């Protein structure tokens, strides 16, 4: 019954990177603008959106008819008919139909996980080129039949005699006919992600004002990035949308301050999380083109950044030992230790804004002496993230968060930022349902 302690001493932080592997580079990316659920992409399926994102990437990098080594993608809200979602999207795209593909699903870490796993294949020499991606539609979400109907139908399909068939049908009750929409609740707790985060936000005493400030910065940073054309070669319009529909360039602290708490209302006066400092349900897709250095050179393609290393983490949130979205707080120190880095060694921090409270709780944890000693096994606080380096071109609070598409959005944007700067490193941190997290380091080139 002994629970595995997360507090492995960071100094002996697990495996070390294999020394002799070659580099995996980010060549570029593409996404469609993110739409609010029920908005412009209401009638687009995951496959439609992923295909559109792929086609934009193909157009940007002239990959028409190209046989890419492998394409990996996925979605969080997935129809059973989409068992081969990514391959179907490839077949519908301008890529060579001889391009293989596979699906990945790791909740909100799906997009980043596709990048990491494909980068590893490139590093090992299994692939020369790869496209990583993800897509999600909250508008076109699957609706499941009730458990009773599902079991009756399965029994019916197995029934051989008329009598057996009648018996199976007779099991169906009127209430079985009402469908089940997907729940945003964690399966093991029944609490929504927002409710979970509300508990963590309260635990770390993150104020409403601090959360609203982070949201405001996200909108302003992203609007400014759009205005200076930063996204010109990262985003391809789709269905009449050329910027993220959630973006509110003119929002203010006053406007954000007027919103009523949306999560954690059971906390009473302590409820601080609103629709303004939480991500809305979003539709969208993103893809990233990866390659070996040789591939990029031979194809005269840019090399924006190296995928240096990545680390996954998970927390025991079920009975509240840790916050649902706090896994990156544990994974980052391990990743840093393995690579001999500190928070001071980064020029950009891309911490996914599932909720403003998630980002701020994570930062608070890294600054907390006791947490870092007892839970991270460090000798003191991990350190402080320079806020001027945090989500400098906006993040999910502004762009929205189509779950599996967020990783690709962040990787492509960060790679471009690093390349523009010409040097330095960026840290990506993405929290995910099920108490998971995936973090990665990119370096400029």
């Amino acid at each position, binding site marked *: 019954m002994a629970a595995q302690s997360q507090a492995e001493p960071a100094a002996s932080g697990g495996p070390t990177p294999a020394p002799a592997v070659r580099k995996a580079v980010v060549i570029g990316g593409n996404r469609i603008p993110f739409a609010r659920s029920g908005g412009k992409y209401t009638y687009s399926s995951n496959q439609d959106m992923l295909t559109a994102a792929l086609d934009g990437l*193909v*157009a940007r990098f002239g990959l*028409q008819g190209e046989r890419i080594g492998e394409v990996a993608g996925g979605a969080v809200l997935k129809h059973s008919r989409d068992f081969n979602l990514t391959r179907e999207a490839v077949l519908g795209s301008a890529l060579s139909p001889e391009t293989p593909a596979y699906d990945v699903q790791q909740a909100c870490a799906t997009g980043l996980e596709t990048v990491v796993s494909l980068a590893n294949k490139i590093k090992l020499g299994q692939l020369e080129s790869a496209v990583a991606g993800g897509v999600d539609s909250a508008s076109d979400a699957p609706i499941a039949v009730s458990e009773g109907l599902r079991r009756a139908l399965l029994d019916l399909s197995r029934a051989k005699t008329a009598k057996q068939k009648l018996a199976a049908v007779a099991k169906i009750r009127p209430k079985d006919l009402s469908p089940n929409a997907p729940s945003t609740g964690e399966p093991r707790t029944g609490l929504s992600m927002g409710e979970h985060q509300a508990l963590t936000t309260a635990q770390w005493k993150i104020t409403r004002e601090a959360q609203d400030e982070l949201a405001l910065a996200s909108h302003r940073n992203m609007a400014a990035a759009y205005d200076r*054309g930063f996204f*010109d070669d990262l*985003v*391809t319009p789709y269905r009449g949308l*050329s910027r993220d529909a959630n973006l509110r360039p003119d929002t203010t602290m006053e406007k954000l301050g007027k919103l009523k708490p949306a999560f954690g209302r059971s906390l009473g006066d302590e409820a601080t999380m609103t629709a303004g400092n939480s991500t809305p349900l979003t539709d969208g897709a993103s893809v990233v083109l990866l390659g070996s250095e040789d591939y990029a050179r031979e194809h*005269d393609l840019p090399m924006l950044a190296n995928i240096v290393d990545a680390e996954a983490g998970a927390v025991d949130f079920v009975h509240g030992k840790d916050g649902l979205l706090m896994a990156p707080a544990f994974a980052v120190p391990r990743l840093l230790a393995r690579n001999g880095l500190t928070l001071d060694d980064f020029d950009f921090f891309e911490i996914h804004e599932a909720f403003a409270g998630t980002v701020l709780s994570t930062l608070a944890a890294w600054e907390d002496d006791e947490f870092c000693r007892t839970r991270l096994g460090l000798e003191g606080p991990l350190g402080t993230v320079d806020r001027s380096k945090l989500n400098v071109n906006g993040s999910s609070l502004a762009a929205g968060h189509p779950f599996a598409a967020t990783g690709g959005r962040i990787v492509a944007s960060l790679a471009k930022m690093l390349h523009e700067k010409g040097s330095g490193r960026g840290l990506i941190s993405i929290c995910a349902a099920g108490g998971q997290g995936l973090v990665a380091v990119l370096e400029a080139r």
Partner: protein
Amino acid sequence: MNDAYLNLVNTGITKEIAKKLGLPRPSILRRFDPAKPLVPGPVLVLGKGEAADALSQLLLGWDQDVRRHATPKEKLGAILVVLDTAAAPGDLGEATLAAGAALRDLAPGGRVVTVSRPAAEAQEPEAAAARQGVDGLLRSIAHELRGGATANGIVLANGVQATAPGAAAALRFLLSGKSAYVSGQFITVGSDAGTLPANWNTPLAGKVAVVTGAARGIGAAIARILHRDGATVIVVDVPAAGEQLARVANEISGTALQVDITRGDAADRILAHAAERYGHLDIVIHNAGITRDKLLANMDESRWQSVIAVNIASQLTMNRTLLASDTFSPEGRIVSLASTSGIAGNRGQTNYAASKGGVIGMVRATAPLLAPRGGSINAVAPGFIETDMTAAIPALTRQVARRLSSLQQGGLPVDVAETISFLASDAAAGVNGQVVRVCGQNMVGA
């Protein structure tokens, strides 16, 4: 974009009705098809002198049937009227009248092409009169032709051989279906510069081209034609048009670059993209343009300024950067979209006409900067072209506008694209600083 009238008067019972009623009966134009002959019959070469002989040899080299005298009742694909030696108005008659006698035998979609010298360069008034006379007679022939036939002229600057690359390429262009909607126009070949392509089907092989405003309409057609002719094409449009732009790029195996050309760094971004992906840039097509029509009396500043900014100021800025860049080939070619509105003006289009007139001025002034390095810059001035933009014109006005040309119909985006591809080819290097109208000999601004 579909000219229903054109289809009506060319098919079935409605064709007969239109004939009886004496309605204008525009023909379906002969457009380029690589599987079809260059011209739909033998070429009658009229005129005396070295040029006429040399051009006959050139045509024979292109596997054409050449006639130096008309054979009665024989259908002709084209009539070449070589008047380069005309020293006085009296010298024009013989060949011109011979051409006239053969006009009835000109096949549908046939071609009349004159070859002459520029009046402005004439030493004597007699020669100048003769040369300028060609201008008038050619344009009149163009008006007279029916059945989708066209008449255009090649003007050879003093010292330029009739078979110089530019002249040969111009002749081939004018004879072919590529010039379907060009009529009543002159192409001036100013020098012997240029090289003929190894393969006439891929005159742009190995070239890297940029087309702005390529997401739709004429721009997309230009991208397709440049690709057909062998170029690798970078398609450019504003970020908001990215979805259609990507589709065009993927159709032609090019690359899409989303950038607003009014940005100061637009040319830098284009050059960086070209340098990184292809190492060089050879052809730039300034196609992006907008209209913000309003009578001048009602014109506001933003309508005026935005049209000027997109249609001409951006091109000036980009050209400055292009000419200073090592990525842009020394023999680089620039083709810019002007408009017949920029020549003749158009009610409600002062801003647009100013910008397009500006393009013509820019082209003429930039040509001498490019000539020494082997480069060139020209403009194409479309008339009424069937696009999304013209589809927005009220129906009746649109019908009238279509019939207001010798060809009695609107042109297609591909017609503009073909002319641009010709001007962007190395063979056409001798054509520099020119404005070629693609207007079906529109009455406006003739």
